[in-house]
């Protein structure tokens, strides 16, 4: 196997809050191969966004990161200075956010925002940057690309803005794109268009994609590999085919049973539920974080569960196969 483009080992993030230290991410490890799509999936608050911010070194001040290895293309960023990450971010690794309006500056034209990073990282002139911007806008399916460069973000629809964010992420020819809920705010038809576009570009340009979403439907259709997060931990990790046909962790299984799926669920019949609520992440969490809600929980679950593996499939649970 070739060297992964991204390796994350034992990542933990603590956030200081008024109520105490919130252990937002705990001992998360995964890696992403070149040209591969990894989906981080889980319900709100499980630590997906904090994980991505930790990788990009964009955590809020109140957060502390601990990581034993955070390597981009073999270089351990945890051991290189700030300069190394800054040189990579927006360049060889780029980010796409859920709400383009928060990432786009309303006071600058689309053209200014598309070309700024490219000119800085690639030491390129205005004409060359503009040419690349037009090329990428066309690539993401935007007609009259030249005219768009003079427009401001508020003049565009949500779907168009997200296309522009994708073009912006691609400007410097990244090896890795992290997209945090890129289609959650969009209509289903636009979502399908944007995801299709992302998947096509990713394949064509050989980019590795970390796609963060709470939507198992999106995961099923785009992921090569899946990491399921719960309460700050990756509880299960494997190929998409494995995770969907043979989920091992009781949380993953519970999640799948909650969604209506024609053929598996009958219209009008009760859906599966996961009783209870996510535990508080403030203060220490001992043992399996899912045990209060788990139908298979036993006393031993109060201790840190082992990581079970089978081929590329790994899960944190006392059960071999729930």
């Amino acid at each position, binding site marked *: 196997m070739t060297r992964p483009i991204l390796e994350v080992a034992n990542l933990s993030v603590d956030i200081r809050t008024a109520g105490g230290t919130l252990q937002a991410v705990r001992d998360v490890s995964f890696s992403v191969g070149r040209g591969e799509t990894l989906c981080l999936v889980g319900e709100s608050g499980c630590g997906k966004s904090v994980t991505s911010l930790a990788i990009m070194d964009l955590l809020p001040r109140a957060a502390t990161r601990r990581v034993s290895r955070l390597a981009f293309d073999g270089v351990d960023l945890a051991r290189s200075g700030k300069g190394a990450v800054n040189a990579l971010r927006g360049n060889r690794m780029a980010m796409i956010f859920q709400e383009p309006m928060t990432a786009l500056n309303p006071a600058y034209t689309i053209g200014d925002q598309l070309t700024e990073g490219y000119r800085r990282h690639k030491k390129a002139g205005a004409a060359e940057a503009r040419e690349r911007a037009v090329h990428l806008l066309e690539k993401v399916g*935007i007609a009259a690309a030249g005219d768009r460069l003079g427009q401001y973000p508020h003049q565009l629809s949500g779907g168009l803005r997200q296309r522009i964010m994708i073009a912006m992420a691609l400007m410097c020819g990244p090896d890795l794109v992290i997209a945090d809920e890129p289609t959650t705010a969009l209509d*289903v038809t636009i979502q*399908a268009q944007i995801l299709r576009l992302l998947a096509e570009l990713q394949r064509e340009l050989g980019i590795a994609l970390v796609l963060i979403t709470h939507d*198992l439907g999106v995961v099923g259709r785009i992921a090569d590999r899946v990491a399921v997060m719960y309460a700050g931990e990756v509880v299960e990790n494997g190929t998409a085919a494995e995770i969907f046909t043979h989920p091992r962790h009781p949380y993953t299984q*519970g999640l799948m049973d909650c969604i209506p799926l*024609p053929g598996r669920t009958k219209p009008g019949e009760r*859906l599966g*539920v996961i009783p209870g609520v996510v535990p508080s992440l403030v203060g220490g969490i001992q043992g399996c974080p899912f045990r209060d809600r788990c139908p298979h929980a036993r006393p031993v679950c109060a201790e840190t569960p082992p990581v079970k593996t089978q081929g590329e499939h790994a899960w944190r649970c006392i059960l071999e196969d729930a």
Partner: protein
Amino acid sequence: MTALAETPLIEAPLIEAKGVTRSFKVGAGLFNRKRTLHAVNGIDLTIRKGEVLGIVGESGCGKSTLARILLGLLPPSTGTISFQGRELSTLDRRAVARQVQPVFQDPYSSLNPRRRIASIVSFPLDVHGIGTAAERRRRALEMMDLVGLPARFADRYPSELSGGQRQRVAIARALVMKPEIVVCDEPTSALDVSVQSQILNLLLDLRRELNLTYVFISHNLAVVEHIATRVAVMYLGRVVELAETAELFANPRHPYTTALLASILTPEPGLGIPETGLGLAFPDPLNPPSGCVFHPRCPNAFGPCATVVPRALGQHPAGLVACHLHDPDYNTANNQGNRPS
């Protein structure tokens, strides 16, 4: 109530909308003239006792505006709404509220943060002056029990509850008046899937127990397929297709319905991401396209589509489709040949 329940289908509709439109004047800055936005643009709809009418369509297509009209919260610009055969405009607003109650999307903003849960649930009883304070509280506790909220929440505030619990409060409040119809506008869209399934189960249980009728608005088609018995597909203020749920999902007739269904992403690895064939020509509601409002995005558009507004075809009120492809006046063998399939 029971007599009605025993004869479910063959009766007068609970709600009948005829030619309903609703427009808004929207300003575009200090110097521009106000322009008219047709949020709901000529809707005929009947809602029958015991059914779950799903309403789907992209954001901005008028779902919430229609919901507010059905709730009597917003008068239509033109057209009529009748409730059990009587025109809504002739009825007392409170009499309508007794029978038609809402559950909205946002379980955060739709509950008064300064009221305790029991008092939020009993609020409609207060408004209608029903019962003594003690009776109202007892009724609120009954409702909380019905929706699965423990009695210990009675004196808490909304901020102390999770999103799913707040949505249960909203449902309890909607049911306290024993309404005929509950209009749910994206009731699970703000919730995590594990909470969504709890709320959907609750709505389904309540419907069976109380013989309720729902209008269920959602942009999540898988959820609508699960809960609705009939589905109306809206596009830019109009109902473009209406059919029994199983029929609509098995045999979509309007090209927009086909594209919507194609966009559903189910967790089935290997299927990939579908091509919707819709293009990027997103419509401007202030300047809607001529003819069929869907024609600039329609992969099947032909001769009349850019100029002639399609009429609603089909056995109204059970089902309809508004598309020239299904209009024998236009869709001759000749036109079929011109269609890009």
